[in-house]
């Protein structure tokens, strides 16, 4: 499950780099996927946990990093949903989840006997108040952010966005399970019951995140694949033609327009540049090139 999630997130991050360069509004959700990937990496699914942790002193700092990266991932996802729902960033509660990070770091530092490196670092140390505070505050911040995210999506949650929101609700249930475990284990004698509830955290957390990531990826591809099919060949052909006929002063300009503009805008710029080239050189392109340019222009269309 974790490896599937890692592959999904890696694909997303790579596919979205051009959009992140062009559109600043896309950066929040991109940062979310980067932090999500870092969180997964710090779980030790690519490099063994012991290896990563040994570089960091072998005192389970990876556990703290997992918590911080996961929180940042959800926080930035929350921000992109905020933009989607057109909600201004006015409430003081907006940055509240980030305040939990220094508190978590302090609590983590106060945990005694942090060696050796272990995936279940917090469970044997739950008797300590610092561990309970560290784990509890992390879950509380996560739960708060996820619930706010679902709340912001309430009017838009239709179709795949509803699946996305459902995945987030499963994550919220997982966080609630873990929070219940922390409270029951540390403050009551019902340890067995607490462990039984706590065991649901990992199952639900990764299930929820996988559903969320998969629905987001399907939404993303269904939006972008038809455009890529319609324009990509034309964009590449026009860029190559601009380079071949030396339509620009710089060889980098055609490639820059291709990367820096949306596909349609890049194509339009290339067409204008090629026409300018024809006019200044006072010679027309050969008939097959002219025909292809005409076909592309017809696809773009113009409202007169």
């Amino acid at each position, binding site marked *: 499950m974790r490896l599937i999630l890692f592959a999904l997130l890696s694909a997303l991050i790579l596919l979205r780099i051009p959009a992140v360069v062009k559109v600043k509004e896309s950066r929040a959700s991109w940062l979310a996927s980067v932090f999500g990937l870092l969180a997964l990496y710090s779980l030790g699914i690519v490099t063994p946990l012991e290896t990563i942790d040994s570089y960091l002193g072998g005192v389970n700092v990876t556990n703290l990093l997992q918590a911080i990266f996961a929180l940042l991932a959800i926080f930035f996802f929350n921000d992109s949903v905020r933009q*989607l729902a057109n909600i201004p960033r006015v409430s003081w509660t907006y940055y509240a989840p980030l305040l939990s990070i220094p508190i978590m770091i302090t609590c983590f530092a106060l945990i005694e006997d942090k060696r050796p490196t272990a995936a279940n670092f917090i469970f044997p140390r739950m008797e300590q108040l610092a561990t309970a505070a560290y784990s509890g505050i992390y879950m509380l911040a996560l739960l708060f952010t996820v619930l706010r995210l679902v709340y912001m999506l309430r009017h838009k949650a239709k179709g795949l966005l509803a699946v996305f929101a459902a995945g987030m609700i499963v994550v919220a249930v997982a966080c609630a399970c873990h929070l219940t475990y922390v409270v029951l284990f540390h403050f009551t004698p019902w340890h067995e019951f607490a462990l039984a509830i706590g065991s649901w955290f990992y199952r639900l957390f990764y299930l929820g995140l996988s559903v969320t990531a998969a629905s987001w990826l399907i939404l993303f591809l269904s939006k972008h694949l038809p*455009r890529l099919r319609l324009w990509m060949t034309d964009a590449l052909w026009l860029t190559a033609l601009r380079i071949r006929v030396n339509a620009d002063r710089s060889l980098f300009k055609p490639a820059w327009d291709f990367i820096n503009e949306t596909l349609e805008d890049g194509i339009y710029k290339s067409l*204008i540049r090629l*026409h300018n080239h024809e006019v200044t050189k006072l010679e027309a392109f050969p008939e097959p090139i002219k025909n292809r340019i005409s076909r592309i222009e017809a696809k773009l269309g*113009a*409202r*007169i």
Partner: protein
Amino acid sequence: MVFPPVEETVLELCGDGTTSMTEAVERLKLICEKPIHLIEQEGEWGTLTALTVEYEDYINILFPPRHSLQYKVHCIYHELGHIFLESQNLASPQISQSLLKETKNAISVSCRHIEDDPVERWVEDFAFRMSKKTRVNSSPALDPFLC
């Protein structure tokens, strides 16, 4: 000289959504308080792609018929950009009235422009954004969640 942001100008002429060239020209007519005529003109154009000729009570934009529709539209928007800047007193015509009088009996006029002229850059950006607003197949609306 400080030019207005191109995006704001385009918004002023086209509104929020998409529009057509006719509508954009109509709005510019109101701003510059003169009728604007778009005239396809046969003849020897050389490297000229469009020409604005302003009279006391109207403006003509002349353009050659030989180019493709997209390119003609782009060149017209470029000229509309010049008209907008002149209507706001932000740029003077490329050939001033006094110089125009000097050319009264001339058989040819050529002029030199400084390369990378800020006015030219502004009107070219204006033409690009205007065409985007009036293109049938433009970039999809921004979606911060998915873009």
